[in-house]
């Protein structure tokens, strides 16, 4: 059975993974860097669009970030999403996972979606803590690390990647899903899509609009130091003796 799906996809703008990072003197990540829509989120948008194509419905992109995060939303709209919501507020600078989840939940709740799709983890933070918090705040079950999603009426089924294979998870909608990069190959935005995206709505909201106050953060940064680095060893060319050198190291480590 097919019924139209209202799908929210959370999207994040991240430093371009294909360029190198730079740190400012105060240990914040340089803002000069190229930014892109998180490649993992692109896969989330793609999955949402495929579900919409199969079931009908609407795809809404929600992002939290500075003004320029509008570009990340615009990218998803040019792929075919219907509209966007940008949560931006100076008070959100340096927001921790809980504040981020609270802001996203407040923006998503009034939409009453059937599905919320998030990337399993962002490319820059890679901790994946926002989705379970968001599921809790929205009162939804979480179906996570999905490499495959199937929707049948109000039943949603995912294949959840595990250390030794996968689990088949099922729940009734509304539900929150996190997807991996293996879920779907993101489409390129067509010229028509890029043109159409220009006139699609991106609603901008601040913390006040969402009725949220920035409370005390879960943590305070006390300092940042250089990570302990391993001492560099010997670097040799692959020549007649290289294999013997490797064998010697393996023997010293008692693995042969």
């Amino acid at each position, binding site marked *: 059975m097919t019924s139209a799906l209202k799908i929210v996809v959370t999207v994040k703008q991240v430093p371009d993974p294909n360029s190198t990072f730079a740190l400012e003197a105060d240990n914040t990540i340089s803002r000069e860097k190229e930014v892109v829509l998180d490649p993992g989120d692109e896969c989330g948008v793609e999955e949402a669009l495929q579900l919409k194509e199969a079931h009908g419905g609407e795809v809404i992109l929600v992002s939290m970030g500075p003004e320029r995060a509008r570009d990340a939303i615009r990218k998803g709209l040019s792929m075919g999403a219907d509209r966007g919501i940008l949560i931006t507020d100076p008070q959100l600078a340096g927001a921790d996972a809980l504040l981020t989840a609270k802001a996203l939940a407040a923006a998503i709740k009034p939409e009453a979606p059937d599905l919320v799709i998030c990337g399993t983890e962002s490319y820059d933070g890679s901790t994946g803590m926002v989705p379970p918090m968001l599921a*809790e705040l929205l009162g939804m079950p979480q179906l996570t690390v999905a490499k495959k999603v199937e929707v049948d009426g109000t039943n949603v089924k995912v294949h959840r990647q595990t250390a030794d294979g996968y689990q088949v998870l099922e729940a009734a909608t509304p539900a929150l899903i996190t997807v991996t990069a293996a879920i779907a190959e993101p489409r390129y935005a067509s010229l028509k899509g890029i043109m159409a995206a220009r006139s699609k709505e991106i609603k901008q909201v601040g913390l006040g609009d969402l009725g949220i106050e920035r409370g005390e953060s879960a943590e305070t940064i006390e300092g940042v130091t250089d990570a302990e680095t391993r001492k560099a060893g010997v670097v040799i060319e692959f020549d007649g003796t290289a294999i013997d050198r490797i064998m010697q190291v393996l023997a010293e480590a008692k693995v042969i």
Partner: protein
Amino acid sequence: MAKVWVYAELNQGALSATALELMVKARELGDVEAIALGAGAKAAADTLGKHGAKVVHVHEDAAFDDYLAEPATDALAALNQQGAPDLILFGFTSDSREVAGRLAARLEVGLISNAGDLVRNDGGFVAKVPYFGGAKVASLKANKKPAIVLIRPKSFEPSEVGGTAEVKELAVTIGDGSKRAHIVERVVEASEKVKLEDAKVVISGGRGMGGPDNFPLLEDLAGALGGAVGASRAVVDAGWVPYSMQVGQTGKSVRPGVYIAVGISGAMQHTVGMKTSKVIIAINKDAEAPIMKMADLGVVGDALKIVPALTAAVKAKKR
């Protein structure tokens, strides 16, 4: 003494290795109570006692094994209501982070994730968290009670201290409202003979392997050394090998006697998961690759020539 809880993750009846790693840190920080949920919880209590838990709260309801995250969140929240600890430790694993995230949101306390270490400081807790891809370490002081901290697997070496835990049955009923994300089937795909996390030798391949067709070269070497094969995120994302082989921040953490990185440049994403290996050997065509700066031995050259030559040498030596 600080009151410290350890969420002792069970995987289908078996106590996770990470739970015992957390015990090492927990008993250093305060009086430890562990929480074990699902099949095998009572049996695990014995082991947790030997590793320093004074009390183990157990609950063997099938819901903990059959439904993702929510039943465990309910149990922890209920126990917290009876008396909040100062600190709750979770492993930074796929299953534990689902529970920790929900709990942190429900209790409105937030959390600190991906910590490599944790110390007491002025009566509070300060977590050491890799930052900026692992090049830096941030010291984060926890502001809330309970502080919820997720610690990376393999951060500590488990050790027994002797002792017997008092086992307490957790009196909480898991309602139908939390039985939602239903695990209806578990499919095992990995056919690896040696588990990546437990292997004494790990040989990992990256983009420098040229393509998935060349990964059998690594399997051959692993076979000769009795080791396991891992991979970088780049080649997992490219679909060359399954996610179960990924080593790194978002994959598995390994700490073998010897780690051989083949055709892996050494992005922080990867090195966070293997840099505590005892010996690191890097094989790469680029002498300037970051992995060369952390390897005990770096060999510059064509991986597709070096790996078979090494396999032959290991086999010859065994004869």
